[in-house]
């Protein structure tokens, strides 16, 4: 504001001074966010010698490419399970009123904030050789002796779904609550059977929520570290675990940086698509 007062020749514009507030946040992000990311990318092409040697190694030798594909596979599986479980749950929750809705919201939002380390630990206890799940399986007669659940993809998937389900549920519920029940009523009056009503009316109207939830879960799942490490053991390696291991155990920074750059690119592209979809959704609702 002081700036606006000293330069009386230019007309005073509301909010001119506000731009100055960005100086500190932008400087902070430049030093502690953009520069560190840049340096990861730079190191992947400059170290140990300039060129794409590290990328050639990551893409054509060793287990790296396989681990990257596995990461995509786990993320896709987790997203699919979240959508399959989340869609009906969200549809039911979206119709709730009063205290049931409030409890469901508290539960979903609350679980978003519970420690990921602790929740993965909880599944470790449940999935132990003589843990609750195995005891239940034996009691129900599915198996005679304990099966190994820990260190399998099943364990990782269940643990990740437990953490990521709220990211699917919240956008779904928000979209489904905006669906006008009169449209469904109109469809019914016009003679649509429940299946047709769902496919032609409800599903298309809920798609923005499906898009948002799917993208959000998939993007977040790509960078998962805690759950696959604890529940997958060394057997199921995801990209984030690979990066940590390259640095922590092998001290191979160039490889870690190359894998990180690939992961970064993936995430950025998906994030860009996600914001585009979100903007298109807003534009559509304004029309």
């Amino acid at each position: 504001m002081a700036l606006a007062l000293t330069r009386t020749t230019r007309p005073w514009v509301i909010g001119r001074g506000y731009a100055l507030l960005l100086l500190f946040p932008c400087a902070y992000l430049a030093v502690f966010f953009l520069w560190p990311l840049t340096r990861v990318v730079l190191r992947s092409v400059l170290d140990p010698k300039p060129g794409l040697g590290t990328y050639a190694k990551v893409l054509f030798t060793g287990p790296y490419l396989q681990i990257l594909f596995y990461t995509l596979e786990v993320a896709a599986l987790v997203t699919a399970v979240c959508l399959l479980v989340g869609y009906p749950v969200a549809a039911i929750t979206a119709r709730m009123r009063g205290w049931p809705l409030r409890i469901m919201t508290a539960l979903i939002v609350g679980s978003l904030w519970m420690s990921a380390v602790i929740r993965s630990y909880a599944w470790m206890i449940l999935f132990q050789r003589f843990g609750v799940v195995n005891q239940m399986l034996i009691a129900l007669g599915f198996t005679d002796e304990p099966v190994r659940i820990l260190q399998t993809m099943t364990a990782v998937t269940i643990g990740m779904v437990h953490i990521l389900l709220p990211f699917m549920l919240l956008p779904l519920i928000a979209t489904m609550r905006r669906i006008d029940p009169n449209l469904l009523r109109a469809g019914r009056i016009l003679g649509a059977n429940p299946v047709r009503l769902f496919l032609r009316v409800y599903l298309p109207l809920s798609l923005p929520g499906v898009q948002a939830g799917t993208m959000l879960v998939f993007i977040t799942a790509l960078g998962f570290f805690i759950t696959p490490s604890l529940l997958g053991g060394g057997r199921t390696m995801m990209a984030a675990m690979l990066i940590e291991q390259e640095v922590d155990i092998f001290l191979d920074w160039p490889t870690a940086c190359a894998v990180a750059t690939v992961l970064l690119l993936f995430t950025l592209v998906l994030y860009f698509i996600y914001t585009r979809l979100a903007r298109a959704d807003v534009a559509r609702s304004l029309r």
Partner: protein
Amino acid sequence: MTAGTLGGRIAGATLITLLVIFLIAPLLVVVLMSFTDQLYLAFPPTELVLRWYRALLDDPRWLQAGWNSIVIGTMTAALSMLLGTMSALAVTRSGRAWIQPIGSLIVAPMMLPHVIIAIGLYPTMLDLGLNSTYAAVIIGHAVVATPLVFTTVTAALRGYDPALELAAMTLGANGWRSFRYVTLPMIGSGLAVGGIFAFAVSFDELMLALFLANPRTETLPRLLWEHLSQTITPVIAAVATMVLLFTSLLLSAAVLLRRPDAEDPAT
């Protein structure tokens, strides 16, 4: 939807019940295990005792890590509140077009895998001579916590008419006074909720702490992590229970702060 039939209702209720069990049961098991009298995690425990809580209180390392987590969380919340409010004010109140994309930059750290930020920050902190200090962990945590303050404060700023600030300035208040007496009271609860979220993010952050802290500045998630890769003794369950309790209290505080201006709980 159309599920008005009895069968549909029963199926729906069953599904919701299963979901509630799926979300809550694992946490209840952890709480129950923290009271076990066994040395290992046999379920269910034969007798409930406070033995592991005593072991926890006798171990200076857990206490130090708990204290570190609270100090780092508080400082992270303070720094994020400053960064988040400044950027939210600029993005929502400045009419300039080039400022809008900066909003996406500010929330970007929330979407990126923390491991990438961590391996970039580690050498940066080394260059700055900050490695293993509290400052390194706080600065790193603030990068990933600021987006939450930014989003809550932006929502609060969009929730009222900017003409109020204009009125204050017309009446002779300078930028700071109009912020202090008009803007701050209006965004106060949003800012506080953002601060609590920032604290919660820091309190549960593992990756940055793994790279930026040392045994002296280690946080609870880091120490939990270290123990988990060796054994899963009931002491961890006791720590986990305390952490869950603390997080629940924080969340309740956030909910109470938000209540006045929240009409629809689902939005």
